């Protein structure tokens, strides 16, 4: 791999994880975001399944991109994504059954996530399979860390625990009771409005940070300007 390609892949990773973060910048995939970020374990489980589907569908669509006519690309993309999700669902059920019992309900949910189709259309249809696979994975990982943060915050505020349900994924691990046995919980954090409020705070924090970075860069005239491409 030459340095140019490596730089391109690094750029894809940075865009997925931070600059074009699906949850904080593109604001895509709100449905699963609100539905399953009620606890850390749920949020991370869905995100991991999403990473897998996005990487796989990106790679397959990129490999087949020369065969897909432009006029019917959307139905073909949907067909490919739905088929891959179905195969993944079956494969998990058959060969990773313990994990399937935890992740299983989330895998079919992924087709409801428009971010998969969005990345296939915007990136995989125009790039090499390697770049498209990495783009899908990076976008998924960007979703993962935001969802993990959101899930932790909602779980902690809503029920005073962290990692509840972890024993289903790591036998022997225990959830943490961080706010004491008699913490009554704050129901709104678990309900959908809590997801909106906390996501809003996360976006505000990111925007404040970006504004701060821009100010520092403006003060130092030699630093390269970095304009996020929408």
């Amino acid at each position: 791999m030459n340095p140019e390609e490596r730089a391109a892949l690094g750029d894809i990773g940075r865009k997925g994880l931070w600059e074009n973060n699906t949850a904080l910048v593109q604001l895509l995939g709100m449905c699963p975001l609100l539905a399953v970020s009620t606890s850390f374990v749920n949020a991370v489980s869905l995100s991991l399944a999403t990473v897998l589907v996005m990487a796989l569908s990106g790679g397959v669509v990129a490999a087949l991109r020369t065969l897909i006519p432009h006029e019917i690309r959307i139905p073909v993309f949907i067909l490919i994504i739905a088929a891959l999700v179905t195969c993944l669902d079956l494969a998990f059920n058959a060969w990773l059954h313990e994990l399937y019992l935890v992740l299983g309900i989330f895998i079919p949910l992924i087709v409801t996530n428009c971010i998969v189709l969005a990345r296939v259309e915007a990136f995989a249809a125009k790039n090499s399979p390697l770049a498209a696979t990495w783009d899908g994975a990076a976008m998924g990982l960007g979703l993962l860390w935001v969802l993990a943060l959101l899930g932790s915050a909602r779980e902690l505020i809503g029920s005073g625990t962290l990692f509840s349900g972890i024993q289903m994924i790591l036998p022997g691990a225990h959830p943490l009771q961080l706010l004491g046995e008699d913490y009554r919980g704050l129901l709104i954090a678990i309900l959908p409005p809590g997801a909106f409020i906390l996501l809003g705070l996360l976006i505000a924090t990111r925007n404040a940070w970006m504004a701060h970075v821009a100010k520092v860069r403006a003060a130092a005239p030699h630093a390269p300007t970095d304009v996020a491409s929408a």
Partner: protein
Amino acid sequence: MSDATPDTQPGDVPAQALPPAPGAAGTAMRSAVLLGLFTVAFTALMAVTYEAAREPIRLSVEARRLELIGQVLPPADYDNALLEDTVQLPALGALGIDGPVTLHRARRAGEPVALVFEAQAPDGYSGAIRLLIALRASGEVAGVRVIAHRETPGLGDYIDPAKDRANPPWITQFAGRDTSPATRWKVRKDGGDFAYMSGATISARAVVHAVGRAAAAIAPARDALFGLPAGAAADEAFKTSPAAPDAHGDASRSTPQ
């Protein structure tokens, strides 16, 4: 908007040059054929995956089912293939489940040991509570487990032993209960024999009533049920009078109620 360039979008650089379109009809035909081919190819992919995954999935589901049954009936108590030795129960009001219910028959050296079946309590605090019940051939309850519920977390969910902080868990009090009329299938608050947790009586009451109803319906028919051939429909066992031994059944084993 120009009709002359239908295939290009601003800022959208095509990854490859498309072959020149031979006119609208030709394009439509080519698209239809390609879409058909893609559909066939990906349906084939799904079919192959399904075929390959079917057997492992069946084994996993069976193993999980046996593990679940093991919670209400110790695996050491029986030696037959529990998942194959079944009869189909008709839709009985007493079980609270719409549609037929599969009943598993546990035997040891050919002798009846227990019947395992599902029932449902329709009146939980927030919806139905699904139960798995094992009933010994002697007529006493071997065990009960809640397999699905939506009771309030931290309040009514003690009916599920995984969430119950009591030791032994609340649900274990069903083990060894006799289905004869001597057992009062109510919580103590209502003048029955079963403990409950104050503040969350509704969940306990629903489970106790459901187990009582289901046991009372199945217990009188148990000899007939054990006598049926595997895979048979058990409608007959519930049409005959409960005390009378069924024509298929082993009459010497039936005990008067």
